[in-house]
């Protein structure tokens, strides 16, 4: 009877010999024989024990010419059985996503060969039309390339002097920004664990978004504390507005309220802060956050536009979401007065009545710019201009 042979040399099964055994047995048919040679002193004990556990048999070598093998392994069928009926979990190519990936694909890499069985975890965001946007892979790649280090990206030690009132205004705005960033971090983080891993690029993008918000929190907090004072105030109305975002459990509605409307308005706010920042540190932190927020808005708009194109009921649901939130916040105070005043003072640059008037007008202009931006994005999603204008007007007075 013809036999294949394998020489393990001095290698034992405790140090990787099983890799050579598996490799030698893999191409053989069940029932084929493999004569195994080797010098490891434990091999005569370990080889039969290993074969028993792996579903192979061993036979004592028949006497013949030359030194006998340690044993002859008769290949079992188990390795083939494990992969019987195995299927690929989709296509690994970038963006090659399926409409409804099955739950049993679970955490496997897209495109991996899946052993049958195993858990069927319920990732409820498993509909391509709901979570996917064609632009997600490029956005992720771009986001990954634009990560910056808070320790070095901001000129923390650049000298500047601000009058105490102006410094206090900056601290107040930073305090407000930090709480907004908290909400912007928590909201995508909660959806991250619900997205089917098949939509890898979306999960990666949201993960980077969460990391972005973590850095925003850090730089705003650090700017607030830069001159050694405490933080400013946090109003109940502001926190109510943000909490309605955290409470929204529908992915589409949440990303509409947070990204399309909230972060969209924030891009304008950060641009305003960059423009009227009284010091280089404030200017830089506003600019850095603004770059990231643009991406967050882009993804929100892209995947909702994609969804709107296949789901005619989406716009109606978005409209109700904005109206519901407006009603829920009707009895709250909206933007913290301290924040509004701080923005005016920053844009005024001083307490002279003409300066305050100019600062006030600049904040009004900011609000008009925010409104324009929201209307443009609402129209991009498919709302007619008059409806876009009406809905934009219902957006929270807290900006986010």
């Amino acid at each position, binding site marked *: 009877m013809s036999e294949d042979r394998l020489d393990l040399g001095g290698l*034992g*099964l*405790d*140090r990787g010999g099983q890799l050579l055994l598996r490799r030698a047995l893999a191409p053989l048919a069940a029932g084929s024989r493999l004569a195994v040679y080797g010098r490891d*002193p*434990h091999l*005569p*004990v*370990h080889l*039969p*024990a*290993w074969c*028993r*556990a*792996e*579903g192979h048999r061993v036979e004592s070598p028949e006497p013949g010419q030359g030194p006998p093998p340690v044993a002859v392994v008769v290949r*079992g*069928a*188990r390795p*083939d*059985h*494990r992969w*019987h*009926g195995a299927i690929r979990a989709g296509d690994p190519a970038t963006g090659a996503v399926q409409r409804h990936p099955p739950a049993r694909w679970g955490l496997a890499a897209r495109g991996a060969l899946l*052993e*049958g*069985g*195993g858990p069927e975890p319920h990732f409820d965001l498993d509909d391509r039309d709901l979570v996917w946007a064609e632009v997600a892979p490029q956005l992720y790649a771009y986001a990954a390339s634009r990560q910056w280090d808070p320790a070095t990206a901001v000129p923390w030690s650049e000298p500047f002097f601000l009058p105490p009132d102006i410094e206090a205004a900056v601290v107040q705005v930073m305090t407000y920004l930090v709480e907004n960033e908290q909400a912007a971090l928590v909201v995508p983080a909660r959806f991250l664990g619900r997205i089917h891993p098949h939509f890898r690029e979306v999960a990666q993008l949201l993960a980077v978004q969460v990391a972005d918000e973590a850095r925003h929190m850090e730089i705003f907090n650090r700017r607030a504390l830069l001159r050694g004072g405490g933080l400013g105030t946090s109003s109940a109305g502001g926190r109510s507005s943000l909490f309605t975002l955290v409470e929204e459990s529908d992915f589409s509605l949440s990303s509409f309220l947070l990204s399309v409307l909230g972060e969209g308005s924030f891009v304008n706010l950060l641009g305003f802060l960059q423009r009227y920042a009284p010091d280089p540190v404030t200017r830089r932190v506003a600019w850095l956050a603004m770059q990231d927020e643009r991406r967050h808005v882009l993804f929100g708009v892209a995947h909702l536009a994609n969804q709107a194109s296949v789901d005619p009921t989406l716009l109606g649901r978005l409209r109700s979401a904005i109206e519901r939130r407006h009603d829920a916040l009707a009895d709250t105070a909206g933007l913290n007065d301290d924040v509004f005043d701080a923005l005016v003072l920053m844009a005024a640059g001083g307490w002279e009545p003409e300066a305050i008037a100019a600062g006030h007008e600049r904040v009004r202009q900011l609000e008009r710019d925010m409104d324009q931006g929201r209307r443009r994005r609402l129209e991009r999603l498919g709302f007619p201009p008059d409806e876009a204008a009406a809905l934009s007007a219902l957006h929270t007075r807290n900006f986010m």
Partner: protein
Amino acid sequence: MTTRPLVLGAVAYDPKVVTIWDGFRSWLREHGLAVDHVLYPHYERMVDDLVAGRLDLAWNSPLAWLRAGRLAAATGRSVRPLVMRDTDRDLTSVVVVRDAAGITTIADLAGKLVATGAIDSPQATLIPLAHLAERGVKVQAHRFDVGVGLHGDHIGGEREAARALVDGEVDAAAMLDANHLLFVKEGVLPAGHTRVIAQTEPYDHCNMTVVDTAPRAAVDRFAALLLGMSYADPRVRHLLDLEGLTRWESGRTDGYQVLSAAVDRCGFYGPDGELWMPAYHP
């Protein structure tokens, strides 16, 4: 399912036993056979219940199989091994020494201290000690009584014996061949510092024992279903992995002589299945 369920005993030596038998039970039900499992804290009570007819089947250790046979014969009943795991055939035990200890032959073990598993471990105590005794080598046994009553299912005793050898507390240690591989891989036995000085004859391990009072047709169906379980079926594969087999084989009786002789040599059980070993408290 109009007939009563088969009643199967298993020893809960590890929490995974619940997962395994719950899984097998659901799978068997899906295939039209009702089987209820009853879990025991040790083998002796389970064997008593099997021979008394309170169980139809018992997932027996080799030692429990021997006792079931003796008890059954003494009470006019009979038992047979219905099926067994493919991985329960032709096991061996080994006696290991430190390379540097100057012990080169089995005779050098005379008068030495040999670490073993629990008092009731076939693979790490009864069989290897009998192997030495048959060859006229008188040793002193140092038992590691972990999981007494579990007939060596708990690996802890063997691992402690291996550690004692490495620590120099004993001159040799006895263990299952597969556990020797495991301990070398884990580093419990440092590679290149220990040597196998003796290896026993091959013997069989667990089997699914059926008593003659069990309903014949249901038992036949049970055996056919188990023998038909395929490692290719993902619904049972993880259960087979947990239970440590790749397929069920028909039971055989000729692999238990080694253990039977060992049991008689040390008087572990009497001829009628009596618990003779005074130090054995399951």
